[in-house]
């Protein structure tokens, strides 16, 4: 049996059930709004969004793996490419690019030209410290952690803050090898 290569993001995207994009965008907006009301501090909202994203990411990874036929995630470079090309396409319908690799291949940027989360959004003056899309960084961190890669994900550029694109920096902290989980306690 010949090994089956990963499916393309477009192929998967064509085969999944869809939901109205505006409904999704509005729901996300309402969620952020509610968090601002509940938590008051912008910094706290950033944290909460990241945590929510993380909780999504640790689940989403399995759907991604099940549908994309990706069988190994050992090489960080390859993994970043797959996230950008297949992952973003599959779940958000947009393609991202990977660039700005550092010399030892442990840090890169994922750049989004188009971001469906932010349609209709104008950041008010009172929320200047808000990373409106912080849920995305959490998703990536959570998903990568489930394939044994501990990462730090931070926003470098944000259109809502006046930049020309969305840029997420993904930094690999360490890869955790599998270990025998039980203590010898018999």
């Amino acid at each position: 049996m010949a090994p089956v290569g990963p499916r393309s993001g477009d192929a998967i995207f064509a085969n999944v059930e869809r939901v109205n994009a505006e409904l999704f965008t509005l729901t996300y907006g309402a969620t952020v709004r509610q968090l601002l009301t509940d938590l008051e501090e912008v910094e706290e909202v950033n944290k909460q969004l990241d945590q929510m994203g993380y909780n999504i990411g640790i689940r989403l990874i399995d759907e991604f793996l099940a549908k994309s036929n990706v069988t190994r995630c050992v090489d960080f470079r390859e993994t970043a490419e797959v996230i950008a090309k297949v992952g973003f396409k599959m779940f958000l319908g947009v393609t991202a690019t990977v660039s700005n690799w550092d010399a030892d291949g442990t840090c890169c940027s994922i750049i989004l030209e188009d971001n469906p989360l932010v349609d209709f959004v104008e950041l008010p003056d009172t929320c200047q410290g808000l990373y409106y899309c912080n849920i995305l960084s959490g998703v990536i961190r959570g998903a990568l952690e489930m394939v044994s890669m501990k990462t730090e994900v931070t926003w470098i550029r944000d259109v809502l803050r006046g930049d020309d694109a969305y840029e997420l920096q993904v930094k690999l902290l360490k890869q955790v090898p599998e270990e025998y989980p039980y203590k010898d306690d018999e």
Partner: protein
Amino acid sequence: MQFFGGSEISPSPPVPTASGNNAHMMYVFNRNGVCLLYREWNRLLHTLNAQQDHKLMFGLLFSLKSLTAKMDPTNAEKGNLGVPQLSGQGCSFHSFRTNTYKLSFMESPSGIKIILVTHPRTGDLRESLKYIYNLYVEYVVKNPLYAPGTPIRSELFNTSLDQYVRTIA
């Protein structure tokens, strides 16, 4: 208008290879060795209590994987026996057979291990295990009330699993 998200269980299940009662049991483990699910359809012999049984099964898979990684005849750079591997790294295995049963095994890069024990003459179940992984995603992972890493208690998942397994073994 733009659309995205959502899903159905795809790909559709592989063509049935058998029909009957040839499946004995199934295990799902996460990478921390927690037995998320144990189903039993037709198991006559219980030599150990459930907890020991699961632990022994996980230990067997873990050791067999370090064995196959070390024995891989196509790779010269393997390190020592039992050297910790990143998940998905090194030569793994997909089944073994004894005179009384066949064990089929798959592992996702996220460390989910699915084990199906069937009649020794069952054919290749790799595609079927992938399909079961898809069922797990749909009925377990996507259930917002399911806490990751805890034992699965989903009637819907169990029912669809029972139905599906009946068509393959």
